[in-house]
């Protein structure tokens, strides 16, 4: 009995327990109305089922959340331009692959060139944001607001205000699946990004530096860490992630839709970081927490679709769930609850 209690205490004490618990809760709530939620079959040689949808559709957001976590941790601010940067990356890629035409049935330029250009575009956008935040010391939200508003305009300019279609089977693979492999490609992309970032943070001192700078930029500067460089790099990395995510999103619809790629996704990315139990004030962070947060958001959307909630009510349900999850993780609430418990206990004693 005591052992069990200790186990539970150790489990709940684990940092990622709450985010994971919330994700599992959201997923399992489906069993009430959709008993077949966890069923997985194979259709056309690709895994098929609700749970696959969640993992597949969340990939874009997972990649964004990875970049956003580092930005939040290092600068204590958010990059609200990621959605727009996604659309820029998609537009650049499609522009190069189509050679400026509106719809093509084969690549005009090699595929790899388009991908590299898109990633480079993401990095450049990140550099611009990083320069404004790290060197010019502009408030992160204000600095990234520039690309937030201008980014889609740039993407529109590149695509000449039209949707550019790339109707080539190999272009669709990044967003759907590669023949012979049963798992959708975006899942792999997300996995690779998460793993590489994790290794980068754990095997080098970068992770430690980012935390240090996030906790106290001045002190770390005195310690000999180039804090502005670290902040700059985190924005560049975030831009890179947005670029990759934009590629996946564009490949899903095999086109560059400047108005809609990554629309409102910046807010979801910030929410993913928060749902993962990370403080938006910067400092200590958990990469896996953000990843879990991203999956939770997608699980919630898929759940609401599966339950057949009418579209005008969806925002309300989302809001309620988010409020509950965030409240569950708030330390202030925990303190209030324990205080209440103490009061009740002492009240009983007096009585």
């Amino acid at each position, binding site marked *: 009995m005591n052992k069990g209690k200790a186990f539970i205490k150790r489990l709940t004490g684990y940092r990622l327990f709450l985010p994971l618990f919330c994700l599992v809760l959201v997923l399992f709530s489906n069993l009430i109305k959709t008993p077949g939620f966890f069923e997985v079959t194979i259709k056309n040689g690709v895994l098929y089922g*609700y749970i696959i949808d969640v993992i597949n559709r969340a990939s874009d957001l997972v990649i964004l959340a990875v970049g956003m976590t580092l930005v939040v941790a290092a600068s204590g601010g958010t990059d609200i331009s990621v959605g727009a940067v996604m659309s820029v990356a998609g537009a650049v890629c499609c522009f190069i692959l189509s050679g400026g035409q509106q719809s093509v049935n084969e690549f005009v330029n090699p595929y790899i060139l388009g991908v590299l250009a898109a990633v480079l575009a993401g990095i450049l956008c990140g550099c611009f944001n990083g320069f404004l935040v790290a060197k010019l010391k502009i408030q992160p939200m204000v600095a990234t607001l520039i690309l937030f508003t201008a980014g889609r305009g740039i993407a529109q300019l590149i695509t000449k*205000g039209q*949707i550019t279609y790339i109707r080539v089977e190999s272009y669709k693979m990044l967003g759907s699946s590669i023949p012979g492999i049963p798992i959708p490609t975006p899942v792999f992309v997300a996995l690779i990004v998460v793993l590489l970032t994790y290794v980068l943070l754990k095997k080098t001192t970068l992770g430690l530096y980012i935390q240090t700078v996030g906790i106290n930029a001045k002190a770390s500067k005195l310690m000999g860490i180039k804090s502005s460089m670290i902040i700059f790099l985190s924005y560049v990395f975030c831009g890179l992630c947005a670029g990759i995510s934009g590629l996946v999103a564009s490949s899903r*619809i095999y086109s560059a839709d400047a108005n809609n790629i990554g629309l409102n996704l910046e807010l979801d990315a910030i929410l993913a970081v928060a749902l993962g139990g990370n403080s938006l004030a910067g400092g200590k962070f958990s990469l896996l927490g953000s990843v879990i947060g991203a999956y939770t958001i997608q699980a919630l959307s898929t759940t609401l679709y599966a339950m*057949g909630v009418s579209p005008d009510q969806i925002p309300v349900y989302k809001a309620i769930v988010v409020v509950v999850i965030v409240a569950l993780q708030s330390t202030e609430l925990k303190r209030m609850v324990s205080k209440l418990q103490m009061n009740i206990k002492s009240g009983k004693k007096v009585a």
Partner: protein
Amino acid sequence: MKKRVLSFLTAAVMTTAMILSGCSGAQTAATTAAPAATETKAETTAAKTEAPTTTAAAAEKKEIVVGFSQVGAESDWRTANTQSMKTTFTEANGYKLIFDDAQQKQENQLKAVRNFIQQDVDYIVIAPVTETGWDTVLQEAKDAGIPVIIVDRMINVSDDSLYTAWVGSNFLQEGYDAVAWLDDYLKKNNKADSDINIVTLQGTIGSSAQIGRTNGVEEKMKDHPKWKMLERQTGEFTQAKGQEVMESFLKTYKDINVVIAENDNMAFGAIDAIKAAGKTCGPKGDITIISFDAVAAAFDSMIAGDMNVSVECNPLHGPRVAEIIQKLEKGEKVDKIAYVKEGVFPADTAAAEKPKRQY
């Protein structure tokens, strides 16, 4: 001391900035004034050369000046809309079109309308970015005695007399047309008596296209007791969301017969989702796809055999607006609401229609 220098410097910078901005302001004013001046000059010279020939004919041939404020260039549809205006209001047709691209910003549109009033155009045509915020500027136009014609989106003003007419699509009728087509199609395929399960991918909730199309379909579906609407969900008019929602529909319902997508992009997403689920769609497939808008890519999809039908949302507003202006010129009364003609394009006619399409 240092501080004083700094404050002096900032003051200096600010004043220069002010002067500079003042300069640029004056410059833009000058440039906008310049074309107007050349215009009047051109007109007078034209009048002079024509004067000796026939004064009466010159007076009759006086061109009608139309100011058109367009939203911007967001899609093929919008480009076709602009093109329609430009090809209708040509000098050959006796018009002079002043075109203004608002780049999706209402403040640019308000500015443009005020410019039109100053230039004393004969008619103002607006394709509004948003529904609200038009009262003041339209009152100014009314005071100046310039009739205003609204195209595409409706506006929301306290006083209806602020605009003369509205030209646009009848989304409700589009919904009716979709149901009528499906009814015909089922009869042709001897399925009129079988149960039909329908799912709908709705547009962005609250947009006029979504409301009209959803209501139109719902109203007419009451005449078909065998048809069942399994579920409606929003795909926010985008291909990615349309695909995501369709994926979910396919897992919840095993026997979907018809998908109604409230625009072409969502239909493309739905088609991808259906194919990924190992089902087929289109005229030869299991699932019938009904879509709206009929953009160029929809014709490609119909030719490829994926989509069954697309109900047109016609962007060619120019001729209808011209009709209204001609009526007003003659002093006749015009209808407050004028719909454009819209067609239904099934897959079997797609290949023949595509070359004729302007957008």
